[in-house]
């Protein structure tokens, strides 16, 4: 399980899970799960488009993820769920068109959607770590404003915070992080890590600092368990990431049941 060809999977997986746990904390806090689902899916279309044109998929991923993030972020407070849905659907449809025009081989499509963590190339480790660090710095910079905006939006505005700029900034971070995670855990599953473990962490503790830490720990634990289980059983990693993320939330729900009810 820890042989040399698995090293890249463990390393990149850990970085991706830490980032997903941190971003996910804010996603759950701000109620932007739909955007967190839509952006990686849009990024998937970008990768398909890049394959069609003959560019490196990462460029397509970043371009489409950023475009989706800008579009959704700019429309916040203005029927944002409809805009998110339409952005998602248009990008997925474009992905379908790109794929059928380029006649991509089906396993490649599945890899983009469900991830191919064992296929992480050594050359992609450095970019993954660099982009993750950039996202982590951006999140650290926005940490207090994001918390204030979620807890007391009027107070945040009174203190001179620009909620629209904050939303766009957060969406950009989400987009960069997604572009990075799509090739590793797949478009459909980078989302699972972004919602399940952070939502569980929020149930376990109310203090923001410890919830953020718990979210990152749970996310990494989920991914490690998934890699190990996938290695042992030969079943796709996506299955384990998706179901374990949901399971973590259900367990947290059951454990905190009494407290939720009395609160």
């Amino acid at each position, binding site marked *: 399980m820890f042989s040399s060809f698995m090293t890249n999977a463990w390393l990149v997986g850990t970085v991706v899970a830490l980032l997903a746990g941190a971003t996910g904390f804010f996603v759950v806090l701000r109620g932007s799960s739909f955007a967190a689902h839509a952006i990686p899916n849009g990024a998937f279309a970008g990768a398909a488009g890049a394959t069609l044109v003959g560019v490196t998929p990462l460029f397509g991923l970043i371009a489409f993820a950023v475009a989706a993030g800008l579009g959704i972020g700019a429309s916040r407070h203005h*029927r944002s*769920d409809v805009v998110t849905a339409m952005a998602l659907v248009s990008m*997925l449809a474009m992905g379908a068109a790109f794929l059928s025009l380029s006649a991509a081989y*089906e396993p490649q499509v599945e890899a983009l959607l469900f991830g191919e963590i064992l296929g992480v190339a050594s050359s992609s480790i450095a970019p993954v770590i660099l982009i993750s660090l950039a996202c982590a710095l951006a999140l650290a910079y926005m940490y207090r404003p994001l918390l204030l905006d979620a807890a007391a939006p009027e107070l945040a505005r009174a203190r001179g915070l620009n909620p629209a700029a904050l939303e766009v900034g957060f969406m950009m971070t989400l987009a960069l992080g997604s572009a990075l995670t799509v090739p590793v855990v797949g478009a459909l599953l980078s*989302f699972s890590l972004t*919602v399940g473990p952070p939502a569980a962490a929020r149930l376990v503790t109310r203090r923001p600092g410890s919830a953020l830490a718990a979210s990152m720990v749970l996310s990494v634990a989920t991914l490690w368990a998934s890699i190990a289980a996938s290695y042992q059983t030969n079943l796709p990693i*996506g*299955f384990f990431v998706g179901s374990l993320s949901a399971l973590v939330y259900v367990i947290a729900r059951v454990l905190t049941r009494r407290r939720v009810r009395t609160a």
Partner: protein
Amino acid sequence: MHWLIEPGLWSNDAVRTGVSVGAVVAVVSAVVGLFTVMRAQSFAGHALADVATAGGAGAGALGVAPLAGFVVGSVLGASAMEAIGVERVRQRDVATGVVLGGATGLSALFLYLITLNSSSTGSTQSILFGSLFLVSRTTFYVIAVISALVGLALAWLGRPLLFMSLSPDAARARGVAVRRVALAYTLLMAITVGLSAIVIGSVLSTALLIGPPAAALRLGRSMSATFSAAAALGVGAVAVGVVVSYDSYYWWASHRALPVSFCVVAVVVVELVAINLAQRVRDRSSSTRRA
């Protein structure tokens, strides 16, 4: 003359069935979707399509009829979302997200099992992106009957649902069983989305559920006019999308047609943008007139 409407388009049986099933699904999606948009449940509406996909893939892995898998999958998903809790908007967001994440994990498993057990390729793409032209006559009749039942149920639920969508507190005060009506509506939405996901894929299903109703609501007419407008926009998008997709076969020397899903979504987006722009121009001219 290979121009706009290809000769022989309407004599093709697959196209005829495809257009009729697409039209039925477009009408039901538009009517159900109006409430989805008003209640800001787009995320749940989209997530249910993905959950239905997991059900469809599960049916494929088990060798059961896919239609049953799609509908059962999305109804189970809707029940799980309701069980986690939908009282507050934030909580609803998380509940939807957790169910969606778990369901995509299951689809990954089922699709993997399908590729293990069969030599047929293309199942992933046809499950995700649908295959309007591959619907059989019998499936069409089953879908038409279920759609009619959904329509009847919605007609019965319509008044209390509209009331509580516009003003939940007033509805509760007047004795509407808000929680039960909301649950019933989510289940109806699940059945609709499950039906449309098998016919047109989970992508297109969301497009028809959200796009035409959002555009129709923007027109700001009476309620019944809005329902008709949504249904007409949905059917129009399917019809135009099918024609364009059929025609696109001749556009490139490689003879690779554009997928139907892409064409229909493109028409829906054009409708939505055009109506938004037209309304904005009208709003501006009426406000200058007042000033």
